[in-house]
């Protein structure tokens, strides 16, 4: 057994290129801290293998797979087997368009068969398509809502048009509200497709007038929305809606009044960060810096001629989320930010009685 672990560590080190890559193991999980990872758009090539090895070495509590897993017909077994051979089994599966038959690729039901469901009865809803998970199990302070708006092909009988009044809309809204009622502090919503992007894709997740689904997520100020589909990395500034100057977040034009915070030290509850982490291994596509929506994103947010594969690492406590991009292969690239609860200002100490100033 020890030999096996040593071999695995050696293999991981070799795959990661020794100590050249900038990553650090997350803090050990405890009752009030854990780390999860997220990425999508993997395929089966060397980039995917490097990312998988980096995830295994990083040892997050789980990896949210944001869809488009192997891109290969009958590739499900090989994709799942690769993770299992590495010794990483805590995959939270979510379907993308290349996993449902909307586009050519694998079959999400076969991924489930080969990868399994590591959290089994902890899952609420339809695993791989529309569900949530609370974590840590004993005293959860984060809820992960993973859904499939805009996904076509075999939807497993679910309506993937999440507009207001639909079952998907109600499921998501209720999951957010119920988490808040229970005092679960962090709400992370994951989906494959995009709403606003400064790469090539258009809004495919909230296409009705008023963008009712995405507007609901922003109205409720979920903390982070995770997506893939675009092969690259993008992070918006913290955005939110408000009735007077940003009733909806425009996805074709830039509306500065939807921005609440542009730096990397964000305040919890002020708004939402939208992150596209389609960096699991599939070759990257192009940034479109000429798009008006470019200004929604932080300056160092994505790739032009840089391909830096990897995943997002989120270190969570009840009061703080710290994100770091973990590069597995390719050119140098870094991104990080925090979301923290504001602490009330400490009262100024009273001068000691009788002390003249």
């Amino acid at each position: 057994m020890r030999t096996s672990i040593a071999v695995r560590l050696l293999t991981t080190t070799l795959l990661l290129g020794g100590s050249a890559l900038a990553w650090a193991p997350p803090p050990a999980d405890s009752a009030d801290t854990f780390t999860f990872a997220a990425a999508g758009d993997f395929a089966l090539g060397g980039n995917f293998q490097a990312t998988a090895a980096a995830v295994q070495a990083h040892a997050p509590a789980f990896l949210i797979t944001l869809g488009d897993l192997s891109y290969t017909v009958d590739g499900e077994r090989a994709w799942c087997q690769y993770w299992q051979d590495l010794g990483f089994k805590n995959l939270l599966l979510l379907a993308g368009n290349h996993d449902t038959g909307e586009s050519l690729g694998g079959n999400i039901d076969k991924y489930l068969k080969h990868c399994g469901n590591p959290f089994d009865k902890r899952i609420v809803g339809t695993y791989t398509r529309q569900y949530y998970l609370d974590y840590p199990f004993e005293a959860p302070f984060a809820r992960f809502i993973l859904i499939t708006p805009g996904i076509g092909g075999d939807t497993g009988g679910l309506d993937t048009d999440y507009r207001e009044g639909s079952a998907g809309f109600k499921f998501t809204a209720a999951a957010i509200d119920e988490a808040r009622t229970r005092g679960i502090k962090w709400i992370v919503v994951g989906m494959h497709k995009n709403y606003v992007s400064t790469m090539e894709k258009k809004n495919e997740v909230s296409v009705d007038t008023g963008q009712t689904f995405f507007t609901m997520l922003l109205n409720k100020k979920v903390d982070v929305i995770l997506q893939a589909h675009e092969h690259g990395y993008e992070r918006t500034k913290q955005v939110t809606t408000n009735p007077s100057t940003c009733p909806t977040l425009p996805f074709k034009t830039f509306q500065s009044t939807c921005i609440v915070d542009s730096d990397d030290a964000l305040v919890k509850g002020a708004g939402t960060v939208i992150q596209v982490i389609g960096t699991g291994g599939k070759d990257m596509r192009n940034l479109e810096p000429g798009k008006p929506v470019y200004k929604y994103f932080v300056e160092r947010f994505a790739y032009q001629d840089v391909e830096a594969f990897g995943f997002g690492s989120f270190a969570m406590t009840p009061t703080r989320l710290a994100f770091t991009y973990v590069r597995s292969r390719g050119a140098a690239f870094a991104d990080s930010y925090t979301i923290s609860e504001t602490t009330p200002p400490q009262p100024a100490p009273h001068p000691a009685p009788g002390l003249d100033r």
Partner: protein
Amino acid sequence: MAGHAVKALLALLLAIAVTPFAVGCAPRNRPASTSPGPAAAPMIPEAAGVEPAVAADPSFRELRGALLPDIPELPAYPGATLVGSAERNRPNERKQGHTIKWTTPDSVPKVMAWYQAELPKHGWTYSPPSDGAASEQIARIRRGSIQGTIAAEEESGHTEILVVLGPR
């Protein structure tokens, strides 16, 4: 005033009616390069009230069924139908390059193998995709001060070829 409005509406309706034919009639066997096609009128989808066919944003100029005149020479996949070409910036803003889209009934691997063989003959460097998936492949290309990608993706039984070019 009302007459002008009617004329403008008729012109818009005519443009919308003609566009699908223009796309459908694009020559399937174009010369094997991206030489500019016959002069046609570029449009801004946002202004015309239509969704873009090629452009990454509705505010970018696009030309359906033909190539914009300043697109670099690039071999075109034989027999592919040219959907159109577009700029990657708003008019009068910094030039970001071009997007060109074709469709073909041929498979993704066949299309990418052709580009891998053909592009170097025209001075392009071709960096092959990192995986050989039949569903989608993306290669990096480069020549002089230009770089970009060729993406071939299976879409509802045909393959969409998307070439994106920009400055290095």
